[in-house]
């Protein structure tokens, strides 16, 4: 395992990040409250580390990833990438700083312009930032294609000729073009066929090793996240409820939500799955426009007490390197 030295300065430091989307009635109506998509998230990532971000639909994973790159505007908080606060930058300075972080989205079909040759798509960021042209650009594109397991000849072809898995390789190649320090992958394998997912996960693992790039790996699939991450953060209704080293999280999940989430994954093993004791949560996931008072998980939590209904638990460090936001976690 490539456990990065804990003493080195973090690559990414997020402090009390908030993204609130105003809720309006009608097109020009006044804001009536807000969707608290991200509601006070603090975390840090070391260079070369892969942090997994899991949670259920609508909990704010994508919004958090997008806010780091300022694809959506944060409502508050700080995002320091290599010591520079992205939340305070504008214009050219923002554009330059953003080069160090890239994004890979879920849908490889939507992410590539079908009318652009692959070579052009992949080389575009290099050209735009004035980093390579002519023969040097072609060489760099060939090198990127090889890195993601494609052939240099592919540079002259168009996206529609490629399968979903191959396109996701191309999207990854493009994200790597500017040698970023951080790549944010938002559900990078969710749209792919089961038999093709492994190919892309293996590629990402290989890139982690060979390039030392840090990855923020967003997924609702805990088994996938476990396979690629060094640490894992669990989100619920805009907040991180637990963050821990991978093996600690699975061996000893502390937050009741993490426990339920792990126990709800159906294991692909009939004997083990049927013998297993499961925590089946009751109730629905509340709307982030009207998060419950106190601990926002209290409406579904099997352990909730009176205190949970009134007092928001803060993310506090436990002895084993994990952090948990629960009044009752030990």
């Amino acid at each position, binding site marked *: *395992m490539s456990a990065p030295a804990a003493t080195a300065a973090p690559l990414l430091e997020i402090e009390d990040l908030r993204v609130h989307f105003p809720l309006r009635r009608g097109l020009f109506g006044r804001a009536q409250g807000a969707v608290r998509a991200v509601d006070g998230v603090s975390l840090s990532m070391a260079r070369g580390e892969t942090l997994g971000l899991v949670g*259920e*639909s609508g909990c704010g994973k994508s919004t958090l990833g997008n806010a780091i790159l300022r694809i959506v505007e944060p409502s508050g908080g700080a995002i320091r990438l290599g010591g520079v606060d992205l939340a305070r930058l504008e214009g050219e300075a923002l554009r330059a700083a953003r080069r160090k972080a890239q994004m890979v989205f879920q849908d490889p079909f939507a992410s590539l312009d079908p009318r652009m040759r692959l070579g052009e798509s992949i080389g575009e960021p290099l050209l735009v930032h004035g980093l390579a042209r002519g023969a040097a650009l072609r060489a760099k594109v060939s090198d990127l294609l090889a890195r993601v397991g494609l052939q240099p000849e592919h540079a002259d072809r168009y996206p529609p000729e490629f*399968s*979903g*898995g*191959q396109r996701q390789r191309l999207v990854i190649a493009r994200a790597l073009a500017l040698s970023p320090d951080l790549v944010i992958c938002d559900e990078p394998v969710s749209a792919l*066929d*089961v*038999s*093709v*997912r*492994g*190919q892309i*996960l*293996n590629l990402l*693992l290989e890139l*982690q090793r060979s390039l030392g790039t840090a990855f923020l790996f967003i997924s*609702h699939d*805990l*088994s*996938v996240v*476990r*396979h*690629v*991450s060094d640490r894992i953060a669990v989100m619920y209704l805009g907040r991180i409820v637990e963050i821990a080293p*991978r*093996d600690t999280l*699975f061996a000893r999940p502390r937050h009741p939500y993490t426990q*339920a*989430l*792990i126990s*709800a*994954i*159906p*294991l*692909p*093993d*009939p*004997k*083990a*799955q*049927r013998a297993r004791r*499961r925590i*089946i*949560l*009751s*109730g*629905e*996931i509340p709307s982030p426009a009207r998060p419950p008072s106190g601990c926002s998980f209290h409406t*579904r939590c099997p352990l909730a007490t009176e205190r949970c209904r009134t007092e928001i638990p803060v993310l506090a460090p436990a002895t084993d390197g994990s952090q948990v936001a629960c009044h009752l976690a030990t």
Partner: protein
Amino acid sequence: MTAAAPILEVRDLAVAIGTRRVVDGVGFALAPGEVLALVGESGCGKSMTALALLGLLPGAARRVGGTIGFEGDDLARLPESRLRAIRGNRISVIFQDPSGSLDPLMTVGDQLAEGLRAHRDLDRTALRARSLEMLAAVGIAEPERRLAQYPFELSGGMCQRVMIAIALAAQPAVLLADEPTTALDVTIQAQILDLMKDLRRAHGTAIVLITHDMGVVADMADRVAVMYAGRIVETGRVDAIFADPRHPYTRLLLRSVPRLDDTPKTPMTVISGSVPGQGDWPPGCRFAPRCPLAEDACRAEIPASADLADGRRVACRRHADDAAWGRVA
């Protein structure tokens, strides 16, 4: 082996879109109260198979062969009027996208009532009472309030519960469930799968569960049919299929999903290449271009299905070639 006479028996089912056979010779039998999982990746023909059973094929797709034995009839030969009487009555369907299968312009209550009225003569009070009972049975809180609501006012999990309530209103003999939890979150999926188990226990409903998720199969199925490129390549009891898959595709599919007990950050088993486009099948064994065991004979003709001692059927020329088998994964 199942002793009871099957409630549903499909033979040689074929569906074509133009000249492309998207389902090509699919057959299976479903015993009363049994859960059969139909597993495979996108485009393998799982959903087309389910839709063909009830004459619900979309647009250009046509059933071009096969028999569908159900309660003494061949559904493939029944006129639409008789099929309509069977749909939602003796055989119910639930689809992946719950919001898309509910009528957006009708309240939950009206949709439930419509389902109920189709099968039994009930007056308004009895209808309402039965509707409330059904919503409660599928775990919907505040059923009175929900009756008056429209689908867009409900979450995905709630819509799926309503769909299940409607599907089961008639206490059907067979439920066709096409990826019923794929669009849902895992904690909600756990609730819905549990609900389906309860209902099967209570009413003895047999279920054809279509899914691509091996975890869901392991959780729910008695028997499994694995589909690849329009055909069933292996069927058998769930334990046998997971413990000792005999088709290279089944084996690779099982090995290529990340598991909670594998070693993180190590290379995963992969299936090379990609899934062929729908109906655009390679010659011979359709898995041959991706199969580590393929030999010339595999590419020449479609392998026949062999019956194994444990009740399994496998369509692979080399299923018993133990010496070669170690190369699969």
